[in-house]
């Protein structure tokens, strides 16, 4: 059901926002959903769970964006957040080398746990502070390519690159969902048995990060 696409035209996607605290995850998503930045008049009570309805090439898409707590001590809780998500937006601050390193860790973990089912976006935020850039464009882009993720440059402050980021992500998630549906159709597997199959795949990798998190966190 999380994969969306049930019964035809409406897709429901779950996207998690990952990244260190202070890289601007919240600003990014508030800019996208409310088109506001650092605004004292933001009406929404919270910016941790936001939804957006889109229409992409005639198909309806319901996007649910899950913000996650970025503090290091909550790193171990990642798997609870990102299970069953269709996409992940990994945000770093271009003026902060460390935050890029954190993104690399997240990528490794996500690929290990969820394989290629999840669409990854690596996002260098705060490009309005380009003069203080500490993560080079080439490095970031080549890294993203090497792990099968797309790289974007955004600025929540200037409202740059954010629409494109989410639109691209949605298109990719739709492709993945369609491919999955085709596969299901060919395999003619019943929902119950396919669920069973996924369970085991899901369980297997979950053992590793718990240990990994404890040692890193």
């Amino acid at each position, binding site marked *: *059901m*999380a*994969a969306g696409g*049930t*019964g*035809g*035209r*409406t897709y*429901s996607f*779950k996207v998690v*926002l990952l990244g260190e*605290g202070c890289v601007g*995850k*919240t600003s990014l998503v*508030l800019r996208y959903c409310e088109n506001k930045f650092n605004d*004292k008049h*933001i009406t*929404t*009570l*919270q*910016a*941790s*769970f936001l*939804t957006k309805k889109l229409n992409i090439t005639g198909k309806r898409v*319901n996007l*649910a964006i*899950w*913000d*996650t*707590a*970025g*503090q290091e*001590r*909550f790193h*171990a*809780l990642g*798997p*609870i*957040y990102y*299970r*069953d998500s*269709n996409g992940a937006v990994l945000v770093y601050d271009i003026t902060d080398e460390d935050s890029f390193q954190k993104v690399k860790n997240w990528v490794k973990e996500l690929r290990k746990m969820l394989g290629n*089912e999840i669409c990854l976006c690596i996002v260098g935020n705060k490009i309005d502070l380009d003069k203080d850039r500490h993560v080079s464009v080439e490095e970031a882009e080549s890294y993203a390519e090497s792990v099968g993720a797309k790289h974007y440059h955004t600025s929540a402050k200037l409202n740059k690159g954010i629409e494109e980021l989410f639109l691209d992500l949605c298109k990719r998630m739709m492709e993945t969902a369609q491919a*999955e549906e085709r596969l299901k159709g060919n395999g003619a597997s019943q*929902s*119950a048995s*396919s*669920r069973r199959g*996924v*369970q*085991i795949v*899901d*369980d*297997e990798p*979950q*053992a590793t990060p*718990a*240990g990994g998190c*404890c040692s890193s*966190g």
Partner: protein
Amino acid sequence: MSQRTERRGIHVDQSDLLCKKGCGYYGNAAWQGLCSKCWREEYQRVRQKQIQDDWALAEKLQREEEAAYASSHGAQTHPQSAAPAPQPQGAPGHASLGPFSKFEEKKTNEKTRKVTTVKKFFSPSSRTAPKKETQEGKTPSPSISRHASFDTDQVSKDFVEFLKNLQKPGREIHKQCRTFIMNMSSKKDLGADELSECVQDFYQNMADRLMSHFKGSSESVEQVMDQVEKYIMSRLYKSVFCPETTDDEKKDLATQKRIRALHWVTIQMLCVSMDEEIPEVSENVVKAITDIIEIDSKRVPRDKLRCITSCSKNIFSAIRITKNEPASADDFLPALIYIVLKANPPRLQSNIQYITRFCNPSRLMTGEDGYYFTNLCCAAAFIEKLDAQSLNLSPEEFERYMSGQASPRFNSSEVDWPQTGPAPGVAPANPVLAQLNHNLELLSGLSSRQETLMEAAQSLQADLLSWPEGVQREVQDILEKYPLEILPRTASAIDANNIDNDNLPPPLTPQVFAG
């Protein structure tokens, strides 16, 4: 993608998943690592015997009871097949498989204790005295069961009412739900995960069928699914919430103990951005705590989720008031952890497990409720693993606080709460205490002001009483000083009183003489 993964534990090793007997099937922790088949083979006999024993015991008790009080409560004590059980029926439910765990021992102890207390009522030689006693002991149970069945009746009525609008498919849905509940009642011996599987398969089938019926209108499907969930889960609640086939209750107790041991954790250690000094914030915090405790009182998974959502909303308001900007997950999760620690919600693990097992998956996976529920799971996981590092403490400090040798409230009080009350003897780390002191000060100030007011009022009264006397005296004085004098009439007055003055000669006019 799977709906089921949600309920998996965080760390499960591949090898742990296989049946311990090596039959190649997957095992389950609830069955001591065996697969369902091996488990059944292994423990069927033990269980069967225990069930029989319990039944025998229950029947014996009931016969005794009936024989003794046939006249007064014959009808009441007969077990009804559908009504949730009064005591004798409850006993076989307790009979379960794990006679090996301590937990089970505890249960059995409880059972025997119950039995002995019941026996005690029968043992005294005089028949009349204990009769009254038993009656008193008995009264709550029928009333509770009647109340419970009243609730479920209400739910059924609502359900039928709702389905009437759907006409023919509605009848079909009702039939299917009823059959399903009947089937489930024969499966009581299954493990919690298998029960969950049955319920989830039922949801899935129902949703698929509804989807084709409503031609893809997911809102209508969701509406019906909510009602279906409400109906079947309020029926099944008793048998599937915190079942004895799992160690849910053990986990509940562990969590509860853990939270109690962490009572010293302060809002500063968790870096929560809520300032409880602000009255609205502390009001929201109290509401959030009430909501999270409320979870346990609901039966339907969706109602439980609603409590979590309402709790989250209150937390968001509190953060919003404190920070004056919308709460991000960075703010929300620590705040939720703080609320869980403060509330120590009853049967937290059981409730989490129940929701993951029996909630309609579409709600749990994508919706807002699902997000808050996930955060609650995170909070529970965090509390379980919480250590010195996650609170930015040194391991030694953490140990000292855990063992109760030191309390952080007194150490950090002066640094963290410089703004609280001037009284140095008070532990200002507790904002409630500070508030209390503040209120006390206000009250004493008020009472002293009232005293002065009373004094002033009394003196005013005395003044008022003495004032007329004073005035009278003064008047007297003046009267004495200036006695009343009656003056003779003036000349003009004579004329004025004269009515016939036309007849008088004109008054003399002065004449000027030359001279």
